Every structure is written in C-alpha cells, then in structure tokens.
C-alpha cells in the first residue's frame, strides 16, 4: 500500500510547526520505500495534489478548537472537514473545496485519509520552537503515527 505521511505547518510560526517537527522525528524511524515522509506548507489545492497517487495518507497538523486543551491530540478523518466549508479564498480554495474539485476532475485520492491534529497555543508569533505542552505531544504523536502504519500493515 503506497502511503504518504505528511506534516503540515509553517516552520517559523511557533506551534504551527508541530506537524513538521513530528515528521522530522519520523524520518529516521520509517525506512520503508512504500511510505513517503513529506513536510509541506500547503493548503487547499496544493495539499490535495500532494495526496494524489497514494492509497493511504496520514496527515499531521496543528489545530485550534474552541474548548481544546493545549497538547491534546485528535485523530480525525477527512470527512470531518467536508460539508461545512465553502469557496471564497483570496488565492486558493480550502481543503474541502479542493476535495470537491479533484473528485469532479476524477483525480485519484487515497482511499483513507486520517489526520493527527495537535491542539496548539501560539501561532501568531515568529519562533522556530514550539511551546512546552505542544513539544511534549510530539513524541506521543510520533508513536501514534508509527502504530497507525503498523496497524495498516504498511510498516
């Protein structure tokens, strides 16, 4: 099974980089050629196109929810984001809209997309470090992604 493990974020926006940090930790742990380990700062269509051609995708990203506790880890499916988003961005489309576009254009996407989202605190300052509890979540997410790969028989 061709699998993508994708970390998303901005490397200089503090906790927003957590997805990238997780991926950097996974690079030495996953050596299977069928698994691509990728860091990206993409959204919308760019993100969707990264997923194209894989059977399974595991995405790691930062999230901020209304009542979330910093450092909380969520496992979400791509369906979580569909149905509530519409188009109207300045220069791209959002994730759900991009999904609709590729479906309409019959571009193949992974059968399974799961998202590990880490509740973050600070994404509005310039820093190349995550804050304390977000940092603590990194090794936990690394193990969860490894387990996800093992359970899917791709590792």
């Amino acid at each position, binding site marked *: 099974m061709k699998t993508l493990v994708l970390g998303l974020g901005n490397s*200089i926006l503090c906790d927003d980089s957590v997805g990238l940090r997780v991926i950097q930790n996974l690079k030495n742990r996953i050596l299977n050629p069928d698994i691509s380990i990728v860091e990206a*700062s993409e959204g919308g269509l760019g993100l969707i196109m990264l997923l194209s051609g894989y059977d399974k995708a595991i995405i790691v990203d930062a999230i901020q929810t209304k009542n979330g506790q910093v450092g909380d880890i969520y496992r979400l499916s791509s369906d979580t984001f569909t149905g509530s988003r519409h*188009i*109207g961005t300045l220069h791209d*489309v*959002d994730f759900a809209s991009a999904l609709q*576009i590729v479906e309409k*254009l*019959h571009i193949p996407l992974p059968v399974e997309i799961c998202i590990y989202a880490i509740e973050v605190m600070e994404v509005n300052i*310039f820093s190349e470090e995550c804050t304390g509890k977000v940092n603590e979540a990194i090794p936990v997410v690394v193990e969860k992604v490894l387990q996800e790969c093992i359970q899917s028989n791709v590792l």
Partner: protein
Amino acid sequence: MLKKISINPVTRLEGHGKIEIFLDDNGDVHDAYWQVVELRGFEKFCQGRPAEEMPRIVPNICGVCPTPHNMASVKALDDLYSLEPTATAKLIRQLQYNAFFIEDHFIHFFFLSAPDFILGPDADPAERNILGLIGKVGTGIGNRVIDIRKRCRNIMGHVGGKPTHPEGGLPGGVSRGFTEDDRKGLIETANMCVEFGKFAIQLFKETVLGNKEYLKLVRSENYSLKTFNMGMVDENNQVNFYEGKLKVTDPAGKEYAFFDSRDYINYIGEWVEPWTYVRLTHLKPLGWHGLTEGDGTSLYRVGPLARLNVADNMATPLAQKEYEIMFDTLGGKPSHQTLAYHWARLIEALQAAETMQIITGDPLLTSKDIRNMNLKLKKVGIGCVEAARGTLIHHYETDDDGIITKVNLIVATQHNAAPISLSVKKAATGLIKHKEVSEGLLNMVEMAFRAYDPCLGCATHTLSGHSPIELIIRDSKGMEIKRLNSI
C-alpha cells in the same frame, strides 16, 4: 451619523483584514478603507541570523508568494556579497520564476476571476466559483489548469527544493541545475503553457469582450483609478519580472522616474495611518497627499496592469500582440481600468510561457557552471523582483561577519494598499445607493478588491493564504443589522 459596512475576511488569524465601508445618513457611500492587522516582530526575528538564512526564512512569511520572496532575498544576497550569478544560474532562476508566474496567474484567473465573468457577478455565490466554472465550461479546463500547475510546480520544486517555500537559491547562483535528460520535459511543459496561455486569453476575450455588459463594467468609471504606475522594465523598456530598473509613469503616462531598485529609498516613501497596520507607500519626492487620485495624487499602483502601463512593450511576440489589442480596446495607454488587471495578468502569463520556451531551448541551460563563489561582503544588500502582484523589495544590512542587523521588506500589497481602498470606495459609491446592498452588488465591490490579487500575509509579514470575505452592515449606532458571506 455615518453607517458602517464591513467586508471582513475570516482567516485562521481571524480579523486580520477587512474592508470597512462607511455610509452617510442617506445610505450612500461616504468613505472606504481596507484594513489589515499586523503581527509584529518579523524584522526582529531575523536580526542576529547569518544573512544566508534569509532566503530560507522569508518564503515562510507568505502562503501566496513564497517564490518571489525567495528570489528577492537571493538577489539581495547577490548584492550583499557583490556577486553576479553565472549565465546558467540566471537562466535557471528565470525558468523557475516564469514557471511561478504562469502557475500563479492561471490560478488567480481560473479560480477567482473567471467565475465572476463566466458565471456572472450576480450569480449565486455558491455557484460563482471554480466548481461552478467547471460545471459550466466542462472538466477539460479544470484538468488542464491542474496539469499545468503540477508541471510548473515540478520545475519550481526542482530548483527550489520544494515547490512552495523554496530554499534552493544561493548568493551567486543556484544549488541545482538541469541536465539534457531534463530538457525534453521542460520544452514540453513550456509548449503546453504557451498553448494554454493563448487559450486563456481567447476565453477572456470571448467572455468579456463578447459581452457588452461586462465590457461596459471593465470600462466604467466605477472601476477606474487614476494614479501613477510602477513596474520593472529591462534595457529595452520591456516587461521583465526578474531584473531591470524600476520605472514610474504619471497618470497621463509620462515617465516620472526611472531608477535602480537600490535607490528605492529616494523614491518610495512609507506612511503610517491609524486605520491600518500596512505602511502605505507613495512617491516620496511628492510627499503623502492622502487617499486621492488624479491631479495631486502621490499614489501609484503596481502589478500586472501597472507593469504593462509603464513598459513600452512586452518582451515576447505573442504577448506583444495581445498587449496591443488590450490597449486598443481600452482606449490607449495608460489604462486606469482596475478590472483590466485580469486581462493584463493573462498577457503576462503568456509572456512567461514564451520566455520559458526561449529558456528551455538555450544550450547554456544545462551547463554545470551554476554558481559564482567570489564573495565580497559589502554589508548592504538590496534585491528586487516583480512578484505576481507587484514590485517586491528586500533590503538587508549586516555587520562585518554577515550577521543581519536590519531588514526592510516592501511588498506588492503595500504599494497597492491605498489604491485598493480608493478602488473599493469608487466601486461601492457607484453600486451601493440608499443602503441598498444585495449579494450581487457586494460581489461587484469585492471585484475591485480582488482584481489586485492582494496578499494579506505579505503586507503584514504574517502567514495568510485563506481570506474568505464576510460583509457586516451596521446601523448608525454601530449595531449589526445584516451579515452576508461570500464563503
């Protein structure tokens, strides 16, 4: 008492940009401002770092135009270290850069502009988008846009290490070149881009020029703004995105200034107003004259239409032919019609594609001589490129060890911030009367804003790529009475 309408983008950094339209007691437009809230501290974040880190860092401040930031930064390092890139390195950089222009301009046109014209500005917002466009014109166009985007991004990724947030530029050259094995694919991509560029312009002409109402809209006073124009031109006064001098023409089209970007400080002034965190640029020798157009203005516009206004010609034959058609249709140069930015954008995409064709056929492209290493630190470096949405300047200063002590960035949306406010006001004035605000009218106000393809992240040094528009109407006491979303 004034009434207030807010068109408010909801971003991940919520509330970091909005348009405020103030109505008077009659419900007519009194004034309009485009406001952006800034995250401060980027310059400080850079201080104390080796200058060579800058091309890696600066692409991260913008989710929309990372490649221009990387390129302006690399060119600032060329200047800082007194380096002239090798001929092959220049070709590679320009191949990467023109690939970026093609991808960026087509995405803007097909995802954002074309739905307004092909589905109509009054169409249901749920349909007036790329999905509606695909539904109307077929999946073929969608697949071609996706394919060209992918091919261009592959080129950008090859040179930059990755397509977005590139890191591959080095002072004096590039870190990776091309081989003869790569050339066939590059030529194929360039040819496809030229064909698609021709198709896109034809589609625009058929859709817009073939529709009297749309053409009237493009030519209307509501979508006109008489300012100076600024853009980069080469030694033949032709449009150039990568290198050249900056030329400024006055509202009548007469040359006002022509200067090396290293002298920008003598020509470009930055002005702070209490209603925005964007430092508003203007022509420094004229002084700040506020948000005014026409006689007495010191404002200028940048971006596709401005570039075509200041240049004598396009640099490639097919683009030149379309340039002549555009100005003939619009009544000559300069054109102040804001919606013509879309047309100019497509002509630029065609020039970028033709330039790509020329570069991919150049024998020097695959030379191994990709870097000049004769570094001589001079402690000040200024780099300038034309980003897709306008002139971009990076200015760095260092200590004796090449450690950053000062950073100043002037970005396209900064140049256009004041004109955007004026354009929104003019469109709103013509379209909102006696408090009558319909979804279609609002979109037509937004069209004035959208034509500039503004980038909030760039202007404020924050990351922001997603900015749906929200409209809030408040009564004279500031109470919200209506809210409309374009998302």
